[in-house]
């Protein structure tokens, strides 16, 4: 097994580990296998990133059939970047879930939990690495189906209705993507993304192409929770088990954003997507509405996980704004925010999980006085919140800054108001939580709540410290994102 097999191993290892987890009866052993596989996937992703930065795009053909007849995995800088994000978040959340999953998941279901988790990881990694449009649909459905299962595993019965609503909307989205792939196959005769990119410019006037483009955008919009197709997200994040919320909030929608920009820039090409189709106008308006409405609704929430869910809708709006600018700097801002938001939301959801385990609830009113009793966890939440607002020295500031630079460069001045308004609204809802944690006293003077166990705090602080690190040293985030954006732009003029 040499370095050439890495793209396949990236996806195959979690896929093989999933049925092995199914066979293991003990939750402990299942956790051990999952963390081993996730760490290996992280190592492979980092290796792939280094290889791709040195040598250029890696191509791997399955079954020995050459592309475009066979299924091809194409790992370029953007793919490797997202692979590293997904594998990294998965490993940190698994570190957390050694204790976390045993708090939330019934012991008879723990090995099933890890099976579904590994299948979700397989799906997300496969979606990112693949270079074949139908293979993308298959891995999309693998990750979606396993995330429905993960969301429904929580103790609250509203998790079941949330998972059902997500299932209906997600399947409609995936079927739209299937229609789009079918229409693309109908007019070009190929499913390979590079081959599609070569053949599509000749067909730019075809009505079928426009319909396929529309179906693809709407289908992916459902998956990445673009306003107004975000209705499944707040319920799904609120009622899922806390580790599942952290994992899905930090990875699932990011991979969908990556797939959108892969198709818009790498397959259809920015000249078709932005000149022939009114994509820029639509995405810009929807992105701005997402930022404003998501942040506004988040201010009025009583449940902290629901608040973070609406905040995620707003942050996805930022990413879509960057995408809609149709410039290298806009695309760089989107990719940087992919990484930073994953770190932010992962850390925030895990911190909330720590608080929920000790205090028994995620309602804002029940968190009163947590600052005294759980100082480290509360501090982690504060730093994560500052990153969400975009205070300098945090990762959130870097992404907001890159977005502002991109907006100024392309001349869309009104968007500055949207970005600043979003940050101000974030100040409001983060301040509500900080006030409740630090400036209110607890209802019972000394309850059973105490600081979270170190094995729960370590992953939280790992992600929060990464926030601060990527806010100061941007070599691995901004420079890589810039190279990725230039590559995506250069693929198709």
């Amino acid at each position: 097994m040499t370095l050439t097999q890495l793209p396949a191993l990236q996806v195959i290892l979690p896929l093989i580990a999933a049925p092995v987890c199914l066979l293991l009866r003990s939750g402990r052993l299942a956790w051990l296998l999952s963390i081993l596989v996730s760490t290996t996937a992280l190592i492979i992703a980092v290796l792939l990133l280094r290889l791709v930065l040195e040598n250029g795009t890696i191509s791997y053909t399955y079954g020995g059939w050459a592309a475009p007849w066979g299924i091809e995995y194409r790992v370029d800088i953007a793919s490797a970047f997202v692979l590293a994000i997904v594998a990294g978040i998965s490993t940190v959340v698994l570190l957390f879930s050694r204790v976390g999953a045993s708090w939330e998941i019934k012991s008879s279901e723990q090995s099933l939990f890890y099976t579904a988790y590994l299948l979700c990881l397989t799906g997300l990694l496969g979606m990112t690495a693949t270079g074949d449009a139908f293979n993308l649909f298959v891995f999309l459905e693998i990750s979606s189906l396993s995330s429905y299962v993960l969301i429904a595993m929580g103790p609250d019965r509203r998790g079941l209705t949330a998972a059902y609503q997500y299932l209906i909307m997600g399947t409609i989205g995936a079927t739209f993507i299937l229609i789009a792939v079918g229409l693309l196959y109908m007019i070009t005769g190929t499913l390979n993304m590079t081959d599609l990119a070569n053949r599509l410019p000749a067909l730019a006037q075809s009505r079928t192409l426009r319909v396929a483009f529309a179906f693809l955008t709407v289908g992916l919009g459902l998956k990445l929770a673009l306003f107004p197709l975000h209705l499944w997200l707040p319920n799904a994040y609120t009622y899922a088990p806390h580790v599942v919320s952290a994992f899905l909030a930090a990875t699932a929608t990011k991979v969908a954003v990556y797939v959108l920009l892969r198709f818009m820039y790498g397959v259809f090409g920015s000249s078709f997507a932005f000149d022939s189709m009114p994509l820029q106008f639509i995405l810009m308006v929807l992105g701005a509405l997402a930022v404003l409405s998501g942040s506004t609704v988040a201010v009025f929430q009583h449940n902290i996980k629901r608040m973070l869910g609406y905040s995620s809708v707003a942050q996805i709006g930022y990413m879509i704004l960057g995408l809609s600018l149709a410039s290298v700097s806009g695309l760089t801002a989107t990719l940087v925010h992919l990484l930073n938001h994953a770190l932010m939301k992962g850390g925030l959801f895990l911190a909330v999980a720590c608080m929920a385990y000790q205090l028994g609830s995620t309602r804002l009113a029940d968190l009163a006085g947590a600052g005294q009793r759980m100082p480290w966890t509360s501090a982690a939440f504060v730093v994560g919140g500052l990153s969400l607002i975009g205070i300098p020295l945090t990762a959130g500031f870097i992404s907001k800054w890159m977005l502002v630079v991109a907006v100024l460069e392309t001349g869309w001045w009104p968007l500055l108001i949207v970005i600043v308004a979003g940050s101000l609204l974030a100040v409001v809802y983060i301040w509500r939580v900080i006030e409740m944690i630090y400036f209110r006293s607890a209802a019972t003077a000394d309850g059973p709540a105490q600081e979270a166990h170190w094995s729960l705090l370590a992953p939280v602080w790992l992600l929060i410290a990464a926030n601060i690190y990527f806010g100061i040293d941007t070599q691995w985030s901004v420079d890589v994102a810039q190279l990725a954006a230039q590559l995506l732009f250069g693929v198709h003029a």
Partner: protein
Amino acid sequence: MDMFALYNYWVVIFLMMTGFYVVIASGNLVKKIIGLNLFQASVFILYISMGKVSGGAAPILRETVQTYSNPLPHVLILTAIVVGVATTALGLALVVRIKEAYGTTEEDEIHSQDESL
């Protein structure tokens, strides 16, 4: 009129819109899943009908046949059917659990039970 020569695509559109309408407008959770199945069935028909080569036989290797229909859409649809079956099974499992937890499978009754929380 060559609109009717493309009758297979009209069938696809009819099924797609019917299925989509059932998913959106129906209040019963099981009926939503039925609508989803209709919607997915229309996509299968779209793929298969676009794979047909005029004058082509079924894509099974035989001595006497010169032209075959395109076998690739058939394979794609097999995968999509399996995905559809898995989604239906998962959806129905969720409906069974919801019925046990809430006592009903009507969406508005579930909403009112949740709102009273």
